[in-house]
Each structure stands twice: as structure tokens, then as C-alpha cells.
């Protein structure tokens, strides 16, 4: 094996392991942060017992979930019931392959791009992968052989199809400005001016649909406790339940990373190193998710659908039209 190929393999594997590890760590810390931040916003203390300020709570929760009994319902479709949580987690992790998290760095004389792979259809890749994420939830709902699970699964399928549309259309304005589908180009084009200033409406549409896409409050209809017990994961216990939990947080981190890449200038920023800037912006977006959750009440199902199809979709089409017009006028 020649040295160049070997170096390439080592660098690629290191980047994959690194990104995967960081995302896992972020999921664990997000669970703690969400409980703490929500608690303080609601004038409570949140977890306090395990470790200083409940810092070890996620680890305690993880160990507890590992030792819980793993229940498979009697009439469930066993194979799909077991596979569904994995099908929910994997697509959310795959998206990170194209997200650039830093500038080029020199390591041992090799110039390394801080992105796992820069493909010229990065934008389409994101939507291809994220559209596969629905199957985990839908399969979980069907395989449990429980009407609440099935209703939750079907609801989430309808919701994700509706909001995926606006999610994609919101980003098309940015793609038009950049004239490239590669995420590295999108970030490089924002060196001077962030896209949020050029595309404020696009950012608003993107973030709203992103919240709906990851089934977060106020759009968490698929798991509305008062109507559906717990939605698609009603029958799940032990580590399988934990995997759905992980999938939700991983999806949240993914859509935030896309928001940072497309609208908030990626890793660009003064003084601090690029990777730090990327993480700072990412944390800001994630904080926003938690903030929204502790602020808004849940919508009704028909309100959700009306909002998506009759308000967000026309608005995003209008946004594309105006972006195109301005680009033609400015030449």
C-alpha cells in the first residue's frame, strides 16, 4: 500500500471517528442541558442529586436504561420492531458527512479539510438522507401493533413529508446566491456577509420547518402525550427507547448544523479558531431549540397542516421568486 493512500485512509477514518464521537458527546450533554435550561426557565432547579448540579444525570440515566427489561410486544412484527430504532438513528448521523466544521489545517505536512467529504451534490445528499429518516419512526409505529403507536407513526410521516418540502425550498434561496450545491462553497461564499442578512425570510422558514421536521415542541404532534400516550415509541423500553431519544437529539444537532452552514456563515468568524466558531454557533442554535420548547404550547394537528401548506409553502415560493428577481435585476 503506498503512503498517500494510507495517509488518506487514516485521515478519513480519524475524521469520521472524531465527528461521530463529538456528536455522541453533544447528545449526552444536550440531554442534561435541556433539562437544566428548561428548569431554570420555569423557575425550577432541575436535576441536582447526581454529581454537582446533576452533571452526571445523563450517565445515570444511560446506565438505568441499559439495565431495564427489554420488552417486545406479543403480536409485534419482531424484526421491524428491533430494526426501527437503528433506522431512526443512522440517517441523522449520516448527514454530518458533508458538513464543513472548520478551515483547512496542516497536520504532519498534510493539508486536511475539516469536512468528512466535500461532494458536489452536498445539498441534495442532505435531503436524500434526511428523507430516509422517516422510515424508522413509521416502522416503529407499525411494528409495535398498538393503535397509539400507529397513529403517532402516521402523524409523523404526514408531518415530515409536509415540512420537508418547505425545508428544502427555504435553502434554495441560498443555493441560488451561492450557485453551488457543495456545502464547502456555501460556507466560503459567506466569508464577508452571512446569508441570514441576505435571506432572513429563508432562515425563518428553514428554522420553523426544522423544528417540525425533528418533531420538537411546538410541533411535537407525533408524541402528544395527552392524545397518543407517547406516539410511535409507546411500546419501546430499555436501550431501544434510548435510541429513539438519541435519534431525536442527533436530528436536532443535524438541522442546527445545516442552519449554521447555510445561514450563519459556517465556521467563519473573527479572533477565535474556525472550529470554535462553528461549535459556538451550533450551541446557539441548540439553545434556541430548547428556548422555543419551554416557551410555546403545542399546536393542534389541523393548525400544523394549515400552517405548513397554506403559509410556509407559499412564503418559501415567494422567497425564491424574489431572490431570483433581485439576482436578475442586479445582474
Amino acid at each position: 500500500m503506498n503512503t498517500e493512500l494510507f495517509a488518506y485512509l487514516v485521515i478519513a477514518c480519524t475524521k469520521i471517528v472524531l465527528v461521530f464521537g463529538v456528536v455522541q458527546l453533544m447528545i449526552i450533554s444536550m440531554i442534561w442541558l435541556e433539562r437544566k435550561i428548561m428548569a431554570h426557565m420555569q423557575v425550577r432547579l432541575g436535576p441536582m442529586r447526581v454529581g454537582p448540579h446533576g452533571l452526571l444525570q445523563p450517565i445515570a440515566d444511560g446506565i438505568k436504561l441499559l439495565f431495564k427489561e427489554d420488552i417486545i410486544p406479543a403480536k409485534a412484527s419482531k424484526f421491524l420492531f428491533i430494526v426501527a430504532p437503528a433506522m431512526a438513528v443512522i440517517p441523522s448521523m449520516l448527514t454530518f458527512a458533508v458538513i464543513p466544521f472548520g478551515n483547512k489545517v496542516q497536520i504532519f505536512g498534510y493539508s486536511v479539510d475539516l469536512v468528512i467529504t466535500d461532494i458536489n451534490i452536498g445539498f441534495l445528499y442532505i435531503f436524500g438522507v434526511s428523507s430516509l429518516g422517516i422510515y424508522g419512526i413509521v416502522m416503529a409505529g407499525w411494528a409495535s401493533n398498538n393503535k397509539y403507536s400507529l397513529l403517532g407513526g402516521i402523524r409523523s410521516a404526514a408531518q415530515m413529508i409536509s415540512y420537508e418540502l418547505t425545508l428544502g425550498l427555504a435553502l434554495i434561496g441560498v443555493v441560488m446566491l451561492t450557485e453551488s450545491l457543495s456545502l464547502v462553497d456555501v460556507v466560503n461564499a459567506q466569508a464577508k456577509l452571512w446569508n441570514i442578512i441576505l435571506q432572513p425570510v429563508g432562515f425563518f422558514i428553514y428554522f420553523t420547518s426544522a423544528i417540525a421536521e425533528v418533531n420538537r415542541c411546538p410541533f411535537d404532534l407525533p408524541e402528544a402525550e395527552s392524545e397518543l400516550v407517547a406516539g410511535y415509541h409507546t411500546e419501546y423500553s430499555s436501550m431501544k427507547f434510548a435510541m429513539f431519544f438519541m435519534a431525536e437529539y442527533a436530528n436536532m444537532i443535524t438541522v442546527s448544523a445545516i442552519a449554521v452552514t447555510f445561514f450563519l456563515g459556517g465556521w467563519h468568524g473573527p479572533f477565535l479558531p474556525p472550529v470554535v466558531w462553528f461549535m459556538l454557533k451550533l450551541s446557539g442554535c441548540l439553545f434556541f431549540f430548547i428556548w422555543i420548547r419551554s416557551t410555546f404550547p403545542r399546536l393542534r394537528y389541523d393548525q400544523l397542516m394549515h400552517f405548513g401548506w397554506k403559509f410556509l409553502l407559499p412564503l418559501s415560493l415567494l422567497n425564491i421568486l424574489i431572490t431570483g428577481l433581485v439576482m436578475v435585476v442586479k445582474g
Partner: protein
Amino acid sequence: MSEYLFYIVAAITVTTAVYLIFEKNPVFGALYLIQTMVSLAVLYILLEAQFVAAVQIIVYAGAIMVLFLFVIMLLNLDIKEEARNALPFQRIPAILMGIALFTVICIVIRSKLLQGKQDQYTTAYVQSIGNTKLIGNLLFTDYLLPFEITSILLFVAAIGAIMLAKRKL
């Protein structure tokens, strides 16, 4: 390297397609179809057609199959043995029609009709511009009329579907 990959992926595609036909449970059938779609997308990537691969996953594996599953689950179809032989005389005509369709497809693929633009569009040339950009340019210049006609056709179909589904507008 990519030849081996082709054989592996092609084997998966054909196997899942066969399973799809012989599967009795419609939900599992739909899942096999999704796998077939995804492996087809991998084949497109091996043929350097990244744009087609991405669209294959977004449109077929992502959107259309979700709707399929949606309907199947909502109806919660039971597997009834007698329903499988509802048309007892269909087997021989079906085989004949299948052979006929296969021959027609073979003839069309071999004909000049589907050759398209070849000479100037070598793999290296396509790679230098980028798949998506090239297809976009061609769609809005040389193939504008067929493209617009297709879009009107789809629009009419969408309106028709809404009219059929919702009698009282």
C-alpha cells in the same frame, strides 16, 4: 474495484426485487421496494450520475415510498389467501404480456431514440462542469419544450388527483 461493487449492488437489487414480488405482507413488500430503489441509486453513483442518484433517493425512496407505506398502514391490509387467486385465468396472459413488454423495452433501449447527446459529453467533460449544472443547463436550453410539457402534465395530474379525492370542493 468498482466492478466488484457493481456486482454486489446489482445482486442486492435483483434479490430485493424478487423478494418484493414473492412477499405476501404488503408492508414488507414496500420495504423491499425501498431497498431496491436505494441500491439503484448506488448503481447510478457508480455510473457517475450523482444527480440522478440523489433525485432517485429523494423522490422515490424518500417521498413516494413513504406515501405507499402510509396508505398500506392506514388500510392495514390483511393477507387473504383467496384474494391472491381472484383472477384464475390471468397467469398465462400475464406471462405473455410480460415477455412482450420485455422485448419492447429491449428494442427501445437498442434504438437510436434513447441515445441522446453522446459525442461531446464524455465522462471527463461532465465531471469538469458537474452533473447537476449540466443537466440544468440542458433542461432549460435544448430540452425546454419537453421539460415544460412534462411539468404541465404533472400539474394536470395533481389537479386531477385532488378532484378525484375531494368531490365537494
